[in-house]
């Protein structure tokens, strides 16, 4: 049983790319299509890491991170922001909300796996 990672992105293709890279490295993956949907996935199940987009409909990634951090079970769950966004201001907002890393798209699977393994052991 591998560690479980929640991947949140409104782009189905990005979710698939990330999922395949993670599954290939032995992680279990669950998906959310936006911040609101992802919050529903946080129903007490054990999630070791979250990878979230920033610009999404219904609930953006930074709001989602802030909301997730309010839940005791996920207070210390590391979160990586995976986004096309490059504004420093947004990075600061994500950091303030509780994100641990910021990865810009388009990413290479090896880069993503390196970032993941820095935050949780495989």
């Amino acid at each position, binding site marked *: 049983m591998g560690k479980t990672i929640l991947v949140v*992105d409104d*782009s*189905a*293709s*990005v979710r*698939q*790319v990330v*999922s*395949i*890279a993670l*599954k*290939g490295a032995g992680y279990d993956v669950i998906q959310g299509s936006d911040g609101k949907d992802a919050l529903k996935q946080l129903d007490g199940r054990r999630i070791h890491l979250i990878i979230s987009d*920033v*610009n999404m409909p219904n609930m953006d990634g930074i709001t989602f991170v802030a909301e997730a951090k309010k839940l005791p079970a996920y207070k210390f769950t590391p979160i990586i922001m995976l*986004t*096309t*966004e*490059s*504004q420093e201001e947004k*990075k600061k907002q*994500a*950091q303030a909300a509780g*994100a*641990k*890393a*910021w*990865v*810009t*798209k*388009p*990413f*290479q*699977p090896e*880069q993503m796996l*390196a*970032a993941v393994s*820095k935050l949780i052991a495989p």
Partner: protein
Amino acid sequence: MAELLWALGALAVGLGAGFVAGRRRPAPPAEVRPADGHIASVTRLAGSLAPVWSAQIDSSRTQMESAVSRLTEQFAGIVENLDTVLASSAGALEDGHGGTFDRSRSRLGEVVGTLDDALATKRQTVAELRNLQTLNTELRQMSGEVGAIAAQTNLLALNASIEAARIGEAGAAFGVVADEVRQLADHSLGTSERMAEKVGRAGATISAILGHAEETADREDRAVAGANAEVQAVLDDLQALVNGVRDSSGDLERAAVGIRSEVSQSLTNLQFQDRICQVLEHLRDSVTRFAETVAEAGERARADAPPIDPDEALAAISASYTMDEEREAHTSGRAAGVRESEITFF
């Protein structure tokens, strides 16, 4: 398009004229100016075109997103299938064909080993029968020797009887003894002859058993040797088969790994869709904003208010961008390349 450019030019001229006029002298309040018609026309055109362009952009974006999503799902399905095939192939080699072959070889080896043991026991029995035959031969020789001794004793006893008779009265008792000895010698001779006959029959039986045992042992030797050769040939064939399957499986596995890697890379390249969608969304918003700006410019021209600030409008559009290449293209007016991914840890 030429009409639109003409109208936009007229609007610019009108706005410029209005701006210059607004700075130099107040406009006549209720006068209908020639530019007003152009401004109204351009404003209406922009207001009508903006939703059309937005719809076209949205339509393109939606179609691309939908197509790329399907493509991605199919690629993901291929990768999952390949993973399943790879796992199944590795399992089959480790626990299936290879394991079955090893188990078969071990069990066949045990069967042949049992036959070898039985054959060794038989060879030992044959060796013991040969020993028995040798002993029997010795017994026959010994019984012959006993017969010879009895015959010699008989002859000696006869001589003794003759000598006893020649002595007369004094040798009578000795003659009796000599007769008794001769009878014993006869008896011994008879016993030794019967013994020789029994030993001979026993020897013949032993020889018959030995001959049969040797014949069957030879036959079993050849049968076991043949079985060994057959088993080895079958094992060699099976080994060749397993090696062939393993080689083919290895080739398939390498091909599957290569395909998986290429499909994964293709999936990675499909990330362009996410970026293009965002650019198109921003472009759609900009078109809407442009129509609003044109309308506002018209309003201002009609009200003789100061014209809109193009730099301000452009800055507002630029502020809505999320990607560096959007900003770069906005500033340079040329297509911008995609930036390398960056990772920042907080």
